[in-house]
């Protein structure tokens, strides 16, 4: 919060909109004090354009782009080192297509590098005799039909073809091919392949070479979408990990799963693993994990001892066997470390152990099911929206253009609305994985999170409804309707408001809902920034200022956060429902 002043200075500048949006690129500043208010229906006409101003930290490469880059790198290296293009290609592949790495190694010890990759310093001619014996088939042939790499070891055409073919069919290892002579090690480059291999093998080899340029390079990857042939060149260290391919698939650069903000890669991996393993997990849950009897968080048993202590802040101490409080285990019950309370209970038939275990498993499964269902619902809702977006683009827009006598260029707002819906469904989906892993004992956070999520659901619902149902009226109209321009304003407005809301939501979740456990001083700070922004209202940039001022703790109209325990209370309450602290004035 120390940069509060700076932020307001920045807000005063002319380029406020750009500033606001450029922060989306992942600067982890204090910008979580944003507005979560859906009541603000002001439209932001500039927003549509601004989203495209984001500087990209990646480049999408088509196959011909890749080819071009690869050729350029090879040419450049071959010029700098004064070696053949094929030698340059072998060097680059060996050093994972890093030109700088090749330079470094080559100029440090050219001899050594040549040795390692199999580039001979002094090429050897095939012995100058009339007939030679092929080193593979042992047949004797005239010299002119024999071929050799730079080492001069002669093999006949058929054997070369077979040798290269065997290697190519073995996979990308063919890019590291060496002379067939076991004592040699001279590199076989693409020039040899092109001269000696079958057409099919030449193609396969070229394909492996292209793939290597993407797959062996640390800063490039293929788009993971099935059937997509684009690759991505990513610049590290700046901004978001999200990549949007030209095929329209968005994915996370790090883990190559579909874009998953606001949750991190680790959570995604955990969640996906959980989903796939849930059924089989049942046994594991039964054997190794039980919810803490107090806070219900699953506690793994990783020690032989039955004395369990829940992780902080709960720290509840209980007995693994009977789930009773550990404090009740004493001499009376048979001693702490010889808990026979369980044994006694079993003997007396007080409860059936397997039943108890099933109950535990059911509780943790119920919780999981709750989140999974909602996650999956948003997922399928998103698929549906994607299909709708597609049908909009391919047919409906044209129809609408006819019916309402609107040029297609004027209907972009509909595509934007649908794209936004698709994106929001994705975010919303992941908030359920977020919720699942949000510790249950962090009551204030959970409460606030669920409030934000609820608002997001209903806000998105409004947008979805407008884009789906209201649009239908204009699609079915017999003649152009003058209300159409109102519809445009409404839908564009909802799109923009929803976008803002979700962007702020993502940021808040990514920073771990930090300001929920804010101290008094921070609360005061966000209060003062709120009043400042009120003063700022009416200025040119007022509408956006509202979107970034004030902590969430203050900005939800009908709620207030307790100074003492941070619990989120409804506006109607005058004392905190959690700790009975009085509403600060």
């Amino acid at each position: 919060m120390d940069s509060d002043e700076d932020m307001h200075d920045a807000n005063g500048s002319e380029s406020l909109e750009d500033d606001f949006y450029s922060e989306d690129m992942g600067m982890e500043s204090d910008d979580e004090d944003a507005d979560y208010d859906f009541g603000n229906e002001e439209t932001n006409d500039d927003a549509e354009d601004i989203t495209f101003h984001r500087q990209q930290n990646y480049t999408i490469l088509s196959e011909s782009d890749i080819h071009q880059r690869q050729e350029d790198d090879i040419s450049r290296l071959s010029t700098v080192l004064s070696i053949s293009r094929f030698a340059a290609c072998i060097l680059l592949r060996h050093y994972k297509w890093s030109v700088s790495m090749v330079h470094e190694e080559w100029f440090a010890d050219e001899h050594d590098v040549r040795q390692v990759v199999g580039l001979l310093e002094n090429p050897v001619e095939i012995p100058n005799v009339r007939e030679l014996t092929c080193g593979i088939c042992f047949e004797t042939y005239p010299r002119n039909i024999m071929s050799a790499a730079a080492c001069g070891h002669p093999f006949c055409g058929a054997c070369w073809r077979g040798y290269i073919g065997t290697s190519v069919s073995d996979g990308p290892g063919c890019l590291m091919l060496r002379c067939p002579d076991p004592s040699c090690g001279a590199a076989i480059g693409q020039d040899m392949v092109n001269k000696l291999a079958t057409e099919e093998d030449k193609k396969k080899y070229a394909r492996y070479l292209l793939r290597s340029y993407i797959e062996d390079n640390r800063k490039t990857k293929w788009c993971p979408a099935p059937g997509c042939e684009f690759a991505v060149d990513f610049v590290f260290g700046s901004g978001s990990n999200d990549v949007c391919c030209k095929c329209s698939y968005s994915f996370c650069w790090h883990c190559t799963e579909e874009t998953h903000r606001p949750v991190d890669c680790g959570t995604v991996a955990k969640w996906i693993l959980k989903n796939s393993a849930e059924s089989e997990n049942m046994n594991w849950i039964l054997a190794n994990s039980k919810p803490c009897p107090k806070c219900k968080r699953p506690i793994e048993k990783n020690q032989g001892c039955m004395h369990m202590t829940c992780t902080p802040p709960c720290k509840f101490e209980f007995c693994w066997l009977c789930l009773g409080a550990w404090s009740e285990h004493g001499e009376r019950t048979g001693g702490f470390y010889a808990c026979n309370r369980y044994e006694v209970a079993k003997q007396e038939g007080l409860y059936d152990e397997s039943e108890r275990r099933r109950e535990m498993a059911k509780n943790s499964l119920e919780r999981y099911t709750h989140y999974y269902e909602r996650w999956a619902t948003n997922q399928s809702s998103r698929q549906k929206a994607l299909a709708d977006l597609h049908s909009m683009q391919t047919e409906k827009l044209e129809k609408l253009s006819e019916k309402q006598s609107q040029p297609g260029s004027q209907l972009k707002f509909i595509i934007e609305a649908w794209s936004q819906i698709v994106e929001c469904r994705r975010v919303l989906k992941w908030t359920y994985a977020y919720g699942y892993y949000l510790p249950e004992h962090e009551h204030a956070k959970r409460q606030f999170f669920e409030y934000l999520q609820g608002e997001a659901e209903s806000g998105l619902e409004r947008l979805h409804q407008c884009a789906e149902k209201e649009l239908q009226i204009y699609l079915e109209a017999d003649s152009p309707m003058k209300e159409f321009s109102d519809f445009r304003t409404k839908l564009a407005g909802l799109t923009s408001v929803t976008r803002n809301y979700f962007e702020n939501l993502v940021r808040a979740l990514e920073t771990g809902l930090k300001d929920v456990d804010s101290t008094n001083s921070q609360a005061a700070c966000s209060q003062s920034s709120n009043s400042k922004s009120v003063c700022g209202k009416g200025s040119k940039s007022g509408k956006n200022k509202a979107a970034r001022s004030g902590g969430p703790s203050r900005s939800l109209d009908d709620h207030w956060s307790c100074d003492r325990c941070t619990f989120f209370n409804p506006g109607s309450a005058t004392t905190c429902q959690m700790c009975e602290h009085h509403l600060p004035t």
Partner: protein
Amino acid sequence: MQASRARLFKEYKEVQREKAADPDIQLVCDDSNIFKWTALIKGPSETPYEGGVFQLVFAIPEQYPLLPPQVRFLTKIFHPNVHFKSGEICLDILKNAWSPAWTLQSVCRAIIALMAHPEPDSPLNCDSGNLLRSGDIRGYRSMARMYTRLAAMPKKG
């Protein structure tokens, strides 16, 4: 197929011609199938295999020599890189380090070298590998010697 047959025939002729060239190796081609060979190799001297004669059996793929032959010991042998039951051999030149310039003869030579220099770090016979890795050279030698006597030495009679 035709190429591998031609090549094997060349190796066959070479073997006939140089019969006495390497007294430690005796390669024999199956009478009816040129893709089936056996070999008798002598245990190298100053090893626990000394004095033993070991039989190898070759199964040769149609893509030979582009692909390596499959070789295993038919004679029981206690060696870290030979599977005790199947006789399968763990040797790099029979796998990824194969070169089509190798011959059956050179494979036999490589196997003799392996008998003299076991690689306990890639064991196919764990008992034998463990003895060597734990430094129990005597234990290894006496086991290997015993199996050589039992399985690889002609019975005195």
